[in-house]
């Protein structure tokens, strides 16, 4: 058929464009590497060139895809082939957190961190089997469209639109923070400028071309981010194991980690904290070592108090088990049980399938058939990165146990010194304070002085800490051991804390460091680091793009067109969509400026919220005809309330918990409540109209009929407008 021929021709052309782009990117990187090594091109130039070139490319795609057609603006004309939609979904999904922080989380958590790896991939199975084909068949513009049409009336649509906006706005704010951090770290511009430059990159693309431009940019961004992610770890694997396929060779790293941990007695004796304040105890490979703590809540509230000058009382710091207490007083805890791991994995999976910015990508494929295939491609492209992240973590852990822990601080490898200077690696050995100004203590030591655990006695009055030639001595005061070392004394001064050797427990690594420092650990040129920065930017910008489309369409389409003014013309709707895009971007930038820790926390909560609100309602909407509007509203409100209640309670007071499940997995309690309420209330109220039941039958059949669907979806409003 002629139509098929035309599609084939177009797909071939697309494959050619992106193939040429991939080759071009590799050649460009090689040239930059040669200029750096051969001609000594300065680092700042390399960073700027990568940045300008990639941002210029996104702007170019945006301009080429500019459109005034509604279907192109909201759903990319519904003609994105499965493979390309898969790549776009991959970039849409993988955020700054996946690209930069996930390997660091795995580094800190060991096996327990695999809940993220399994959760964020296994969710696509649910998406493929339960949602994607029916979303495509429904063939409208937004997720509130689906909820509003299936359950009838304004309220379900409104509730869904508000949920979509809240989830997407916190998520996009986290991306903007990511953009600011990458720009300031690699290009050296101030964080605030990084935010502005990054956001203008997002806007150039999505403002002109909406979903169409976003889609084709995301495909390019996927290619950049996956290449950037693969190169450093491949070289690191080659350096450490002599084998260039990290996904296969990091087993050797795991073996070495286990051996070094038992040699250094890490698995049995030490505790450390990861970036979010969770207590990690035990080895890397053995499972379920994570305790409960409200350190994240305490620091988030303190940060808010400082930034806004308010005075909210933070909760009393608590951790279970409480490692500051002697062993016999420690309360029994849930370490060693799999419940939190299983609950978290489940919430992440279910939440993934319920996130609006991922669901809308399946409106953009040409057919139901392609939508099923497209989820497969999406997961395949995501899999490539998630399959590799544990290798990054394992190699970094091996390198650190081998060459950093237990070594003299003065002789640590150069990369450790570099990242220590940037504050991403903290060495809490007190000999590092030698020669420091007393009023300029590092962030880890200052609170100890405040609490009295560390006392500085400036004997010679020069305003600096002098430790030259100091020796350690210990006395017992009121049953507590107090150490003295030169001008330092206090309960934190112990024999090992002043021996000039970096213990595992004295080392704190920011999760972002693992991916960012890998090029240096592997001894690669700066060009590779610049490529990583471009990849991180691509990950953050592509996710931000997708989220901004969700927010702008929830307001312009669901709120304005469907609820307030159903007679609005196409031009008005596109114009309003574009305006809302800019407004949402500006709000996200303003929210990102304080860099609140609470934002990262909210992103982690988004999965539990999506799991206990959207997921059950969309699922029952397709698979249970009898489910009705009152049931859906009761389910969403009840499920979300239970989740928020558990989340808040456990966040501030970790002694409130069921089976040791943390606030991150609170959705495990809200989701069944949603299902149950939805079932009971639906049964107690009238069955949905025949019209709606017919709609469900239409959804279940794969024969595509977009015009019919539009007339059903738009029917109510159109009738009301007459």
């Amino acid at each position, binding site marked *: 058929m002629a139509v098929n021929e035309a599609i084939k021709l177009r797909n071939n052309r697309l494959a050619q464009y992106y193939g040429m782009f991939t080759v071009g990117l590799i050649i460009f990187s090689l040239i930059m590497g040669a200029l750096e090594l051969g001609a000594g091109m300065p680092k700042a130039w390399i960073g700027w060139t990568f940045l300008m070139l990639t941002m210029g490319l996104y702007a170019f795609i945006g301009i080429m895809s500019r459109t005034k057609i509604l279907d192109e603006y909201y759903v990319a004309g519904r003609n994105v082939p499965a493979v390309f939609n898969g790549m776009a979904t991959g970039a849409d999904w993988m955020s700054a957190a996946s690209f930069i922080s996930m390997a660091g989380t795995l580094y800190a958590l060991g096996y327990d961190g695999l809940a993220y790896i399994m959760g964020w991939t296994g969710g696509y*199975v*649910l998406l493929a089997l339960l949602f994607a084909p029916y979303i495509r068949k429904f063939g409208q513009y937004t997720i509130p469209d689906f909820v509003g049409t299936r359950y009838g009336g304004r309220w379900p649509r409104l509730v869904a639109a508000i949920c979509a906006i809240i989830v997407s706005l916190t998520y996009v704010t986290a991306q903007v923070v990511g953009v600011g951090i990458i720009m300031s770290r690699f290009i050296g511009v101030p964080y605030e400028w990084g935010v502005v430059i990054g956001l203008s990159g997002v806007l150039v693309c999505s403002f002109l071309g909406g979903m169409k431009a976003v889609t084709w940019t995301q495909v390019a961004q996927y290619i950049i981010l996956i290449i950037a992610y693969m190169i450093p770890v491949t070289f690191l694997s080659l350096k450490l194991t002599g084998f260039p396929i990290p996904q296969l*060779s990091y*087993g050797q*790293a795991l073996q070495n980690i286990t051996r070094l941990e038992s040699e250094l007695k890490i698995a049995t004796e030490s505790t450390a904290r990861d970036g979010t304040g969770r207590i990690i105890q035990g080895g890397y490979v053995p*499972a379920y070592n994570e305790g409960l703590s409200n350190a994240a809540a305490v620091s988030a509230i303190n940060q808010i108090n400082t930034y806004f000058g308010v005075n909210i009382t933070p909760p009393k710091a608590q951790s279970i088990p409480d490692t500051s207490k002697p062993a016999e007083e420690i309360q029994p805890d849930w370490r060693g049980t*799999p419940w939190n791991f299983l609950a978290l*994995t489940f919430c992440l999976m279910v939440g993934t399938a319920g996130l609006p910015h991922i669901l809308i990508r399946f409106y953009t494929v040409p057919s139901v058939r392609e939508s099923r295939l497209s989820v497969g491609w999406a*997961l395949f492209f995501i899999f490539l990165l998630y399959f590799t992240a544990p290798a990054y973590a394992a190699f970094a852990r091996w390198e650190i146990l081998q060459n950093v822990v237990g070594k003299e601080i003065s002789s640590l490898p150069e990369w450790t010194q570099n990242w220590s200077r940037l504050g991403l690696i903290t060495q809490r050995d007190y000999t590092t304070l030698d020669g420091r100004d007393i009023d300029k203590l590092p962030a880890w030591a200052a609170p100890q002085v405040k609490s009295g655990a560390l006392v500085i006695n400036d004997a010679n009055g020069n305003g600096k800490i002098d430790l030259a030639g100091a020796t350690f001595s210990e006395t017992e005061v009121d049953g507590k051991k107090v150490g003295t070392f030169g001008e330092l004394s206090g309960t934190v001064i112990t024999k090992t804390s002043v021996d000039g050797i970096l213990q595992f427990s004295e080392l704190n690594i920011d999760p972002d460091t693992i991916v960012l420092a890998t090029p240096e650990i592997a001894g690669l040129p700066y060009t590779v680091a610049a490529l990583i920065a471009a990849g991180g930017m691509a990950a953050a910008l592509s996710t931000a793009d997708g989220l901004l489309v969700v927010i702008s369409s929830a307001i312009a389409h669901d709120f304005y067109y469907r609820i307030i003014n159903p007679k609005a013309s196409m031009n008005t709707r596109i114009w309003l969509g574009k305006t809302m895009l800019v407004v949402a971007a500006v709000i996200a930038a303003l929210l990102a400026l304080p860099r609140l820790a609470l934002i990262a926390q909210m992103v982690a909560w988004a999965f539990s919220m999506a799991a206990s609100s959207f997921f059950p309602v969309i699922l029952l909407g397709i698979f249970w005809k009898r489910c009705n509007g009152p049931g859906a509203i009761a389910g969403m409100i009840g499920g979300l309330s239970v989740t928020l209640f558990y989340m808040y309670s456990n966040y501030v007071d970790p002694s409130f918990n069921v089976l040791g499940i943390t606030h991150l997995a609170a959705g495990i309690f809200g989701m069944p409540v949603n299902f149950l309420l939805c079932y009971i209330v639906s049964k107690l109220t009238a069955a949905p109209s025949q019209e709606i039941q017919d709609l469900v039958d239409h959804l279940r059949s794969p*024969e595509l009929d977009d015009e019919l669907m539009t007339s059903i979806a738009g029917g109510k409003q159109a009738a009301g407008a007459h």
Partner: protein
Amino acid sequence: MSDIANMSRQERINAYWKENNRLIAILLTIWFSVAYIPPLFVNQLNQITIAGFPLGYYFGSQISLIVFVVLIFYYAYAMNKLDAKYHLKDRDK
């Protein structure tokens, strides 16, 4: 197969839906067993080592992920066949 030819459109959709649900149930059972059973026995599985990988860790970091990808592609393939069987072919656009 002649049964299907004599069915009304609604009957075909109902039969198709039943088969679809059965397939979904089977695939979700596999999905569940791969994702949620090995973590229960992770420390025992870790006693076995394959190419340096402790098996419990390997399940979480690689095997389950590969199974997820395969499950989705298999579903796409099986559903295409099911569409054809019940003459519910997706319209070309």
